[in-house]
């Protein structure tokens, strides 16, 4: 069933698509407000700013959005988002392709790239195990990781998953699966962050830091 009202501020209902407003400004605000970091108020401000100078701010943005939507695709090897597959990281001969860092999502991959701390390759798992969200091991990209290892050339797997109950559970399951491959598996250290004063750290981090102490 599809109903289109004559009032421009009335929404269009359709069985096949989410509710869209036929007023283009309201439609744009509603679409922007769905993005992380945006509410309706901030979306309205952004739209208003763009409408002040549509030629210089809106149309280039529209072009950039279209270009990105059409050009960006997930890398078949690691799951990163790039304009080509294999992505520029998997294709880079300067990087240590045998050193694979396993991350939860592309945001974590970008964070590690920003830090320039890892010169190997990545594997995006696509989430963590979550009983609440109904995500099981078969929903994660564990099998493609095992296939990469089976293909040979992997020297070490670094597990860089979130330090949460779900992240740690995923890490344990991953370590179990990787155990049979014979490839060395390491995990990121836990403890006091750079610039962190002890008196403001949470109890869990302090306990983990104490347990992971090392000879000075």
């Amino acid at each position: 069933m599809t109903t289109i009202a004559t009032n421009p501020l009335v929404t269009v209902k359709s069985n096949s698509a989410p509710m869209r407003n036929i007023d283009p400004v309201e439609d744009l605000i509603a679409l922007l407000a769905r993005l992380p970091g945006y509410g309706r108020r901030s979306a309205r401000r952004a739209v208003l700013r763009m409408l002040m100078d549509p030629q210089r701010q809106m149309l280039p943005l529209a072009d950039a959005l279209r270009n990105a939507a059409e050009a960006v695709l997930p890398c078949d090897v690691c799951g990163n988002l790039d304009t080509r597959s294999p992505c520029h990281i998997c294709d880079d001969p300067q990087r240590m392709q045998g050193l694979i860092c396993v991350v939860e999502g592309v945001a974590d991959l970008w964070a590690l790239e920003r830090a320039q701390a890892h010169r190997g390759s990545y594997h995006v798992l696509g989430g963590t195990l979550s009983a609440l969200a109904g995500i099981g091991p078969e929903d994660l990209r564990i099998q493609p990781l095992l296939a990469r290892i089976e293909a040979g050339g992997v020297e070490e797997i670094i597990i860089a998953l979130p330090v949460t109950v779900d992240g740690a559970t995923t890490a344990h399951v991953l370590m179990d699966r990787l155990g049979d491959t014979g490839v060395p598996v390491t995990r990121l250290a836990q403890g006091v962050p750079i610039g962190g004063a002890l008196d403001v750290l949470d109890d869990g981090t302090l306990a983990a830091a104490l347990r992971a102490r090392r000879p000075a």
Partner: protein
Amino acid sequence: MSTEWQAPAIILSARPFGEGGAVVNVITRDHGRHAGLVRGGASRAQSALWQAGNMIEARWIARLADQLGSLSGEMVHPAAALAMEEPLGLALLTSLCAVAEGALPEREPHPVLFEGMIRVVSRLVHGAGQAMADYIRWEAMLLAELGFGIDLASCAVTGAVEDLVFVSPKSGRAVSAAAATGWEARLLPLPAFLRAADDDGAVAAWADGLRLTGHFLERDVFHGHHRAMPEARVRLVERVMA
């Protein structure tokens, strides 16, 4: 019903809500399983606190008693962080929280179960081996609290109180070794630690215990609500068997 309380609590789950908030389920002694909205609960500053298994001092406040209300808390014991390095300990802790969340009705106090959970979480500090038997006893206690208790007092067939080594999967009553002859394959093994509070058991006995309580949890508690056994509980069994 009160619109404000403060009490020691164990976090059962934290579900992201909006950008930085979380809907958190906790269990307390006098208020049972209780949900509340934590503003900023999924933020970087607070996410370490709102991990399942942590013991906190919780404060809940609402304008009306039947509202979701607002929850805040302070860390008492970072059980989640302490268990994260030990696969079996973490599996036990997540299973404890998932089973409590899935099986217990909301806002119904179960002081015995809360105290049982505190005992399991406290013993987990010394390793999963110290807490596993207590955890399985807690599951048996949960069945009893919900009205599906297993009866281990005497043999269902002969009335004997000695040498009880099986449980009937139908009635949930103990069966002695003598009465079970020829029927062993159809009965559930009864581990000795379920009848002795000071026995911590070992891996084979834990597996038997989890199979025993798991059978009745699945049949009487979760299937009754048209739900599957929580994933975390399934993973715990897999880890014990591994």
